[in-house]
């Protein structure tokens, strides 16, 4: 048993028995909104957003973490999904399609955008890709901002409001649900809907990861020349990663629009792309548990700063030196730099597995 001891050591804090870990997580995830409710509805809202960000981060991780392609315009796919929903389910054009049409459409448009962006650029070196995607994100935002004239398509900087909420099986998630005399708040309903989406996403991505496609992505990320030398069509595989990652962005965008009831270009700034990137950097690129962890921590961060950092500064210095927004940017940028310098594998380092290994033949 000496030869297999070379995998990464697990940090002591995470040595919880695997059989216990899963039920524990399920209970935690299911109970979270109820616990949060006790501290106020705004915390449930934070959880809802956290799940949307988890979804985004899972998608971006597929591109950056699995395939090793740095996409800095990822939020553009989120925007495509959100605007698709806003166009097709709001009074803006007077169209009100149900979610099971709008959501897949948004995902498809986002995937299409991903392919269109990826097709010409994926043969370039990785760092060019970063800057081209960044430019793409900005172009999408500029168009959203300005396509209110001569024909009003996006309603410009004002954005589109009164967007239809998510309605599943006749249940309008934007209203409190009366369940056997118990009032379930809308925010909690959205929480479970988003949780469902996240769990589904995790299952699907995990399947991709442990498959010939996931291994091909890992091969490209590790050594593109060697990947080609074993017969991997690297361009196709990168395109696939791009399109699938964009699909996740599109779905989360649609859910975001429905949840928020309002979209405007402001929500899709470069900063948002950077935030999602930091989430996966923080938790550990490529590793799904890390990505989920990073997304939750960084969504909660602004709230925590608002609740704790401001009073702390007032107590220490008698005034607020750094407002929460500045503090958040400061922490995000520092996190990106320090993680790369000292913990490139993320806070939850775990070796990503690309093969099932239950029954080693005797």
């Amino acid at each position: 048993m000496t030869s297999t001891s070379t995998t990464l050591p697990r940090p002591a804090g995470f040595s919880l028995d695997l059989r216990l870990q899963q039920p524990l997580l399920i209970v935690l995830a299911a109970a979270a909104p109820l616990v949060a409710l006790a501290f106020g509805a705004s915390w449930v809202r934070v959880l809802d957003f956290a799940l949307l960000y988890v979804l985004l981060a899972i998608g971006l991780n597929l591109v950056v973490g699995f395939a090793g392609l740095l996409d800095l315009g990822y939020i553009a796919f989120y925007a495509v999904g959100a605007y698709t929903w806003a166009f097709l389910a709001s009074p803006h054009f007077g169209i009100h399609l149900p979610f099971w049409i709008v959501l897949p459409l948004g995902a498809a448009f986002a995937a299409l955008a991903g392919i269109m962006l990826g097709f010409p650029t994926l043969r370039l070196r990785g760092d060019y890709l970063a800057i081209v995607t960044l430019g793409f994100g900005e172009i999408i935002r500029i168009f959203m901002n300005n396509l209110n004239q001569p024909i009003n398509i996006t309603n410009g900087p004002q954005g589109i409001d009164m967007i239809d909420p998510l309605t599943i099986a006749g249940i309008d998630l934007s209203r409190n649900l009366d369940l056997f005399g118990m009032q379930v708040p809308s925010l909690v309903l959205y929480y479970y809907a988003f949780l469902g989406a996240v769990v589904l996403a995790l299952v699907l991505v995990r399947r991709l990861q442990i498959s010939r496609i996931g291994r091909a992505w890992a091969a490209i990320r590790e050594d593109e020349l060697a990947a080609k030398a074993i017969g991997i069509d690297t361009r196709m595989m990168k395109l696939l990663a791009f399109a699938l990652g964009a699909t996740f962005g599109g779905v989360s965008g649609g859910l975001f629009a429905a949840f928020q009831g309002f979209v405007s270009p402001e929500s899709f700034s470069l900063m948002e792309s950077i935030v999602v990137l930091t989430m996966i950097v923080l938790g550990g690129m490529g590793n799904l548990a890390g990505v989920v962890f990073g997304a939750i921590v960084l969504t909660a961060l602004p709230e925590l700063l608002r609740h704790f950092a401001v009073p702390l500064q007032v107590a220490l210095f008698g005034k607020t030196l750094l407002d929460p927004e500045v503090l958040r940017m400061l922490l995000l940028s520092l996190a990106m730099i320090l993680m790369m310098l000292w913990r490139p594998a993320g806070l939850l380092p775990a070796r990503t597995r690309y093969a099932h290994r239950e029954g080693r033949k005797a």
Partner: protein
Amino acid sequence: MITLLESRTVNKRFGGLQALTDVSLKIHRGEVYGLIGPNGAGKTTFFNVLTGAYPIDGGEFVMNGAELPAGKPHRIVAHGIARTFQNIRLFRDLTALENVMAGHHIRTSAGVWGILAQSRAAREEERLVTERALEILDYVGIGRHADTVARNLSYGDQRRLEIARALATEPQLLALDEPAAGMNATETAGLRALIETIRADGVTVLLIEHDVKLIMGLCDRVAVLDFGKKIAEGTPAEVQRDPGVIRAYLGDHRAH
């Protein structure tokens, strides 16, 4: 004897430098074919053009009677040519098993939908690939390291893993670029045994090597490159006596 691979007047230039000039040779099915020559003679360039890593500037490669798609590495692998690298290029953060399984990519077919839905075919294929990859690891002699991350393997085992990964693509021609470089005598002997087994199992081997003893003991035929030109071809014994080869190796234009 059946010709497996033929190179026809292959040329390669880098700017003003003519790296390969009209290199023509035939590799027979089932043999171990050596490619030797002084440093900078164009051996690795020949490999890189053959496997599509570099575009070709003239001539062609014909495999089993069909012209190879020049400059398209992944399609050349599909034709049955696999290679290793002079400076080992493994997927360093993947385990040995995962490296070999990645090598199966081109011989498997599960698509996105099958994988997402975990169709029966996709699961069955995944199971087979795992099993086959473990077999290959055993075959090259590093089965016990299946779950070791590639970068933690010893140097010799990394060489073996790279061969295992190449074998996973089910090649008819296995092109090895200085596989014995950096190995000690024991490791080289083991490597030699492995190459002989591979040949015995019906895979043709193209070998670039500096270790003259290995070449002489292992190769059925040898071609000698010098300044990008083929200057001799024949059995190791014939080539050893060739005055042109002796001049190339002992000539005063290069210390070797």
